[in-house]
């Protein structure tokens, strides 16, 4: 039996033998479900809690100053007031700047110590990865800031312990990953399909032989530590094979893409202006959602301690967002920056809402979790948290939830995963933490 046949055979057998998985896949095929998710990290905290959180709980609340520009989406969002990040474990230097992004979407209590006192590492996977794995969804992570994400300050997403998912900074690279090898709608013809099939089969053949190369290479090694590296490598090849196999299946079936799908042009090399890059990234993610080329996305909006000038926002007047505005607590300037950030995420949600998806719209069938890695100043309590969309999964939107007592983010993330259909009992440091009461 060929190894590839074994992989597919095993998958089929696993589905037959595993009723939970069968149910999950059946649920994933249902129309009434959340089909995609976005995890969005904003940075640098806020001046005072009332700038972000509305004061009235329930469905009848007045928007806060920061969220005012997206008041029209009130009925499509859930604001959660009272989420803390766990405060423990190893702390690299820089107060919570380094460790809070790594905790934000993972629920781990601390970060790994890489030995230099300055950096840290993830202790385990973030929720986006867990969801994508459980639901067999494709993922991509982007970073709006042009600076390469080198530390945890700009790496909130992870595949596992010490395995960060490094966000892509260049929109052209995002375009290549999402659209570069995909076939644009309306351009298929038999000849093109045949050529693509030939290419994909050849690619599968290369991947098959790489597995053989890996097996030969493995024989020369000794020691479990080094073999673990190759196990992970082999697992990556298998996943790539599954992905290519899926491409082949889709190409063979020549399934016409959704009618609304339109491939954008490659944005090419962009300047370093933040609004330009932000718009390019969000446009690409939107197009990829519509074309169903990706289902789980991560957006790093700045980085912990970032210093954008926000000089494209009328009324701003500072030279350093972190030291001058945040440390100096210049509230009105801080507000202006945050309002712009959240209005951009709101604009993305609005586009989804305006796009039909079956009998509903794409916002209802999407779930966007927007969070800041800090609360007030450098504190990791009362973390700004907003969920957009998600009603197709049963999430009751249009609410401002003020938690009676502070809760850790692991319970929030568990709820989000479960609304997506991932069915988990917990994550991070507490695999049995359970969902967030009241969400």
């Amino acid at each position, binding site marked *: 039996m060929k190894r590839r046949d074994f992989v597919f055979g095993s998958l089929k057998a696993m589905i037959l033998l595993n009723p939970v998985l069968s149910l999950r896949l059946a649920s994933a095929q249902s129309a009434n479900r959340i089909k995609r998710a976005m995890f969005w990290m904003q940075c640098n905290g806020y001046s005072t809690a009332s700038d972000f959180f509305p004061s009235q709980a329930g469905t009848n609340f007045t928007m806060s100053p920061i969220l005012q520009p997206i008041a029209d989406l009130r009925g499509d969002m859930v604001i959660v007031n009272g989420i803390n990040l766990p405060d423990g474990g190893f702390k690299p230097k820089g107060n919570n700047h380094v460790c809070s992004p790594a905790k934000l979407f993972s629920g781990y209590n601390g970060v790994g110590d890489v030995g230099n006192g300055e950096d840290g590492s993830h202790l385990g996977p973030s929720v986006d990865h867990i969801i994508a794995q459980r639901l067999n969804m494709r993922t991509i992570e982007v970073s709006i800031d042009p600076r390469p994400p080198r530390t945890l300050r700009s790496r909130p997403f992870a595949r596992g312990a010490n395995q960060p998912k490094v966000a892509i900074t260049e929109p052209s690279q995002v375009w290549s990953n999402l659209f570069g090898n995909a076939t644009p709608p309306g351009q298929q013809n038999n000849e093109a399909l045949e050529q693509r099939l030939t290419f994909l089969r*050849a690619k599968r053949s290369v991947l098959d032989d*790489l597995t053989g190369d890996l097996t030969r290479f493995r024989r020369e090694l*000794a020691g479990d530590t080094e073999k673990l590296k*190759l196990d992970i*490598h082999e697992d990556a090849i298998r996943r790539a094979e599954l992905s290519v196999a899926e491409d082949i299946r889709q190409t063979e079936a020549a399934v016409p893409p959704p009618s609304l799908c339109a491939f954008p042009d490659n944005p090419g090399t962009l300047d370093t202006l933040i609004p330009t890059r932000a718009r390019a990234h969000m446009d690409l993610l939107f197009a990829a959602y519509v074309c169903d080329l990706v289902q789980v996305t991560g957006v790093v909006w700045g980085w912990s301690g970032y210093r954008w000038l926000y000089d494209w926002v009328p009324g701003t007047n500072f*030279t350093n967002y972190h030291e001058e505005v945040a440390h100096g607590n210049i509230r009105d300037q801080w507000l202006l920056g945050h309002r712009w950030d959240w209005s951009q995420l709101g604009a993305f949600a609005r586009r989804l809402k305006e796009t039909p998806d079956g009998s509903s719209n794409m916002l209802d069938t999407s779930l966007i979790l927007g969070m800041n890695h800090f609360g007030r100043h450098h504190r990791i309590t009362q973390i700004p948290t907003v969920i957009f969309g998600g009603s197709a999964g049963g999430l009751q939107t249009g609410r401002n939830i003020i938690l009676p007592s502070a809760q850790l983010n692991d319970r929030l993330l568990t709820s989000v995963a479960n609304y997506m259909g991932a069915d988990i009992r917990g994550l991070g440091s507490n695999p049995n933490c359970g969902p967030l009461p009241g969400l």
Partner: protein
Amino acid sequence: MVAYQAPQQQIRLLSPRELKNTVFDLTQVELSAELNFGDYSTGYDTGSGVKLGEDILVTLMGAMESVASNYVSLRLNQAFPCFSENPVTDQCVQSWIREFSLQAYRGYSDAELQEELFSHFQRLSRDTDLRSAVSLLTLRILLSPRFLYRTEMGEQQEDGRIWLNDLERASLVSYALTGSMPDQALLQDALENQLDEATLRSHVRRLLQTERGRERVSEFFQYWLRLYSLNNLKTDANAAPKFEDSQVAASLLDEFRSFVQSVVIDGDSRLSTLFLSNHTFVNRHTAPLYGLSSSSDQMERVNLRPRERQGILTLASFLSVHASEVEDFRDSPTERGILVKEQLLCETVGLPSGIDVDSATQSILETHPNFRSFTVREQFELMMEQGPSCVACHSQFMPFGYLFGNYNALGQFVTVQNDRPIQASVDNLQAGEGIRSAYGSIVELVPDLVRDPRLSHCFAKNLVRYTLGYSLGEDFESISWLLGTHLQQNNLVISSLFEELYSSPLIFQRRSVTP
């Protein structure tokens, strides 16, 4: 001295820099993708701790597809003229497979493997044209573990010990000295098992003089002194807002590299010169940082006032990185002090206490409303009064940092800050034998630092860590000690240390990872 224990066997993924260099040297095609998977946990850019998961593989697949395609369309005929003939013969393809795989796999390509690759090519040819088949086979080679990983597994010899074979030695030396695969001469000697000590020494001398060797050596010094952000300053105009003219920031990497190369490769190569010489390199953008003027766009060598500048620790490139990114006056005695302690003396400073600096500042502002008009040192000294734990920890390294007080965040020599005189002298340095407790400035300290054997040993330790790609505590102590001693006994000549290290049997011995 600790008894020698060889480092563990390992495989390591090529770091992004090594991968880019190797791909280019192999194909003459740039690997232009953004690669972010380096392992910086040792302080050096290595692939030792990196596990190649799905995201890295997906990135590499995309990047290598592009390289393979460009290689076949742009370079193949030039490198292998038989591909210009019509028809292209099997012999031509086989000769390409032989040579290409031998280089790509750094010598690990035998007849059996070549036959298997040819067989794969034939299978691919059944469905695609010849050039597509060559492109796909190139892709396979560029993604194969034999290409992506360096092995340091070694072979057990009659003495019961495990020694790296000649191919592994060639790769270790080549990647350490050039950041790329062994060149033709080194690979040939390795294939013929000719890498005895004398041959290795001659290769080390030769490789240090190559363009890649010069670049790699300065890169090592950059990592040693924690100056990796110089690369960002060169490419990102917004990396350090304190520089009004981004050209100044962009030129600092060139200053640093020119200085290191002028001493280590083109000069007497002595560690003492590196720390004591009063020359540097400036262009029209950076000359004003030293109170000089220049009309040149190129880096030009200049001598500086010895009372103000002495060696690598007083270069503007060094000083501006270890300072505020935003405020041009704000030096960082903490960062500079810790660097001396950790990177030059290899002494451990405890982890940060996690004190909330903002709250501490707020609290001081209540008692000292004019706090922000003090000098940086005065501000820090007030901050240190927040509690005994602050003082206990910071007193280890802050005096070193205060000695740099006369250099602002742009690397300029200044005597006044916030209209207040700067005090750079200290009288409470606790640095052990050979270092006094009182100095007037960093320029006064440096000669004693150079004489201190701890500097030589610490330098050697960092070189070993950089070479092996991981830190294993005591594993390094003995070899670092030997090399540090060698450095001292050889007039602190760094190139001699490179020769000694990369020809020493110690660096090629490994310990089994199986119990």
